[in-house]
């Protein structure tokens, strides 16, 4: 079930009412109910996926207990390695098998060696990139003695499959979320009101910004060979806002929904587009992933290579971001996307002192806005690679920006649509800027206003959500086959 569907709304209303009305006095029953609800939610996509998440949860539950009570100190290390191996093999097989096979075949083709392909029709289980990372962080934290292994079977399985964050994050840490399953949740009207506001804003980000802007982006990217330079740039920039609205919107809805059930999930986005460098963007974009990579990949790697000096740091940074890129999808364009960010972060590390000097010399009132613009431009540039059909298409797209004429008469077509998109983005980013230090943009909007003013504001957002709701399907079902 997707968050912005009627099915989910009905599902959640049932869960919400049952949870608070009938189960409010028993933690055990609340957890069991959430576990069942989460499996129903996940099984809705495909019931076959349930076996995988069950296995992943079971193996890490058992392994953590083994790590915590080792017979020999070395066996703890063996067990955590097994856990990582199981999760990565599962992830590797379902997500990357075809990618590896194809790349292998392509590599040999370079030398004119033809390999026969044993193609497998593998379905990618929804959310596997998220929950494998989530369970891995649990066993690693237990190994690092930051956490005690739990014997609470139900709580642990519920933690892994918790439906608000199962499909698209935030990737939670056991130290944050697992503990919340042990205590009884109390219904809090204030917190629930804030949660509703967060869900409203998330819906706005998704329905009004992402879905609408996406229409123009798709038109431009699907026909990129016929676009003018201006159009290609516009398409890229709009995509930056589409992906932000889509992902941050989904995260906000997830956090809001969890809050309505009494859970506090971590914040996943913090107004990333006002960052002054790429390092800062990654501190504010998909925070749960970047912190995961920092704690479980970059830091151990950097510690191991600490005597390689600058090369060690560069190496660790590049490798982390190449894998970060690959995490997003099984294609070379994602690896290249990662590489560009590895480069940017390495640049940031080695120029830290210099940039500090520049900021003092060029007055910060000039330096900061320019930094924001340059950072956004670089980010958008990497997103072209991310969004294009393939690495090759991305390359042609980028070349076309320079080769093609800047404007063509075609640019005037759909001017109304394009202007609408720009208007929506400006409205969105104005609120994003005003709420840049908050958990979500409109967290405190309207607090000092009278009740009716605040209600009018929320009603206006609801109005915009309906007004710009993409009604899919064409007027005709003119089915050509």
């Amino acid at each position, binding site marked *: 079930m997707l968050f912005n569907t009627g099915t989910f709304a009905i599902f959640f209303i049932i869960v919400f009412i049952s949870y608070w009305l009938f189960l409010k006095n028993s933690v055990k029953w609340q957890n069991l109910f959430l576990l069942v609800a989460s499996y129903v939610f996940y099984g809705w996509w495909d019931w076959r996926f349930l076996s995988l998440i069950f296995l992943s949860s079971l193996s890490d539950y058992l392994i953590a207990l083994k790590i915590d009570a080792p017979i020999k100190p070395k066996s703890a290390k063996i067990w955590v390695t097994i856990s990582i191996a199981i999760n990565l093999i599962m992830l590797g097989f379902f997500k990357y098998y075809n990618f590896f096979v194809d790349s292998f075949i392509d590599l040999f083709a370079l030398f004119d060696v033809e390999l026969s392909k044993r193609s497998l029709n593998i379905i990618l289980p929804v959310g596997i990139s998220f929950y494998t990372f989530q369970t891995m962080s649990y066993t690693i934290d237990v190994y690092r003695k930051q956490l005690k292994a739990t014997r609470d079977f139900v709580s642990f399985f519920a933690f892994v499959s918790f439906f608000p964050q199962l499909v698209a994050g935030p990737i939670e840490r056991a130290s944050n979320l697992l503990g919340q399953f042990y205590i009884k949740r109390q219904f809090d009207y204030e917190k629930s009101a804030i949660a509703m506001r967060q869900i409203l804003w998330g819906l706005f980000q998704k329905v009004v910004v992402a879905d609408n802007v996406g229409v123009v982006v798709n038109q431009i990217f699907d026909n990129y060979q016929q676009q003018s330079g201006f159009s290609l740039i516009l398409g890229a920039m709009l995509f930056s806002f589409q992906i932000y609205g889509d992902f941050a919107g989904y995260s906000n809805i997830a956090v809001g929904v969890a809050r309505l059930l009494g859970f506090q999930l971590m914040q996943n986005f913090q107004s990333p587009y006002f960052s002054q460098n790429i390092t800062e963007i990654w501190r504010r974009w998909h925070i749960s992933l970047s912190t995961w990579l920092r704690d479980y990949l970059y830091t151990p790697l950097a510690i191991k290579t600490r005597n390689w000096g600058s090369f060690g740091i560069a190496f660790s940074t590049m490798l982390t971001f190449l894998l970060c890129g690959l995490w997003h999808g099984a294609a070379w364009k994602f690896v290249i996307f990662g590489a560009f960010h590895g480069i940017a972060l390495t640049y940031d590390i080695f120029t830290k002192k210099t940039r500090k000097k520049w900021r003092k010399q060029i007055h910060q009132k000039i330096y900061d806005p320019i930094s924001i613009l340059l950072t956004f431009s670089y980010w958008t540039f990497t997103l072209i690679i991310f969004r294009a059909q393939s690495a090759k298409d991305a390359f042609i797209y980028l070349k076309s920006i320079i080769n093609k004429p800047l404007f063509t008469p075609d640019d005037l077509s759909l001017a*109304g649509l394009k202007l609408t998109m720009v208007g929506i983005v400006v409205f969105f980013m104005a609120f994003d800027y005003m709420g840049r230090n908050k958990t979500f943009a409109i967290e405190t909007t309207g607090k000092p206003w009278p009740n009716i003013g605040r209600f009018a504001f929320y009603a206006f957002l609801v109005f915009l959500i*309906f*007004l710009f709701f993409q009604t899919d399907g064409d007027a005709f079902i003119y089915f050509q086959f």
Partner: protein
Amino acid sequence: MLPVFLATFTVLWGLFTPSFIKDNLNYKLGSDSFLYNRIREAKQVQNVDVLVLGASQAYRGFDPRIFEEQGIRLFNLGSSNQTQIQTEVLIKTYLERLHPKVILFVVNPESFSMDGVESSIDFLCNGVIDNQVTAMVFRLNSIKTYFTFVYAGFRQLMGMDNDFVHPIQMEHDEYISGGFVEKEYQPYRDVLPNDSVRWIPRHFQMEAFERNIETLKKSKSCIIFVQAPVLREFDSKIMNAEWYNQYFASFNVPYYNYTQILNLPKSFFYDNFHLNQHGVDTFNNDLVERLALKQKITEVTMTYYH
């Protein structure tokens, strides 16, 4: 509380935002179906001999002047992309006052596969919003229709467009009394699809169609199904044409598939779906003959006096 705010915002948005903004509120006075003129004329007319119901093949395919020459009073109640849901509204509103002896129900498959939203906008902006139109809005249950309903309703309540005069001529089209729209001659210009085509019917349109036929059968009028001619080369690409033929035949109503009957080539059309005036002439004259319209009109008139 919330609905009040939403309605208020809808009206304010419609009044003050420029029309180029692409959103779910679509208000436009005047359309190339000339529904505006047609509705206002229908409110004045009483007692016709023949009533035509359908989408664009109806109002562009039946020329009242040709029928008038044969002494038949014909009125066209059709509009662009009109679907069964809209035809239902027209039947319930105008059937009694028009009191036709014969109803020519144009049954071209396209109308069954449409969602009816576009036509509903036409009805809301260019028709008169009354109980039947309101019922249609709720039956359609579409966001776009709801928004337009609120805004158009407001404008009509406030009489904001009372001074509007719809032109009789628009680009190459001219509105002819009796609900017909004549297109200035232009040669055939359209593209044939490469692959086959299937008009997939929507359940709610089929249900509305069945309701319509039931209502019409209760009246004393003689109902005849007519599938207006489309270009034969296009028709041959429709995979489920036979399914529709059988569906229409199942209603125990005389059914004439004029694409098959006349099998007209490109010289009679200006696009894949619409006859040019020469085609209309040929089609209408054949219809009067083949359907023995004058005879049927006389028969039904007699039953009114029993």
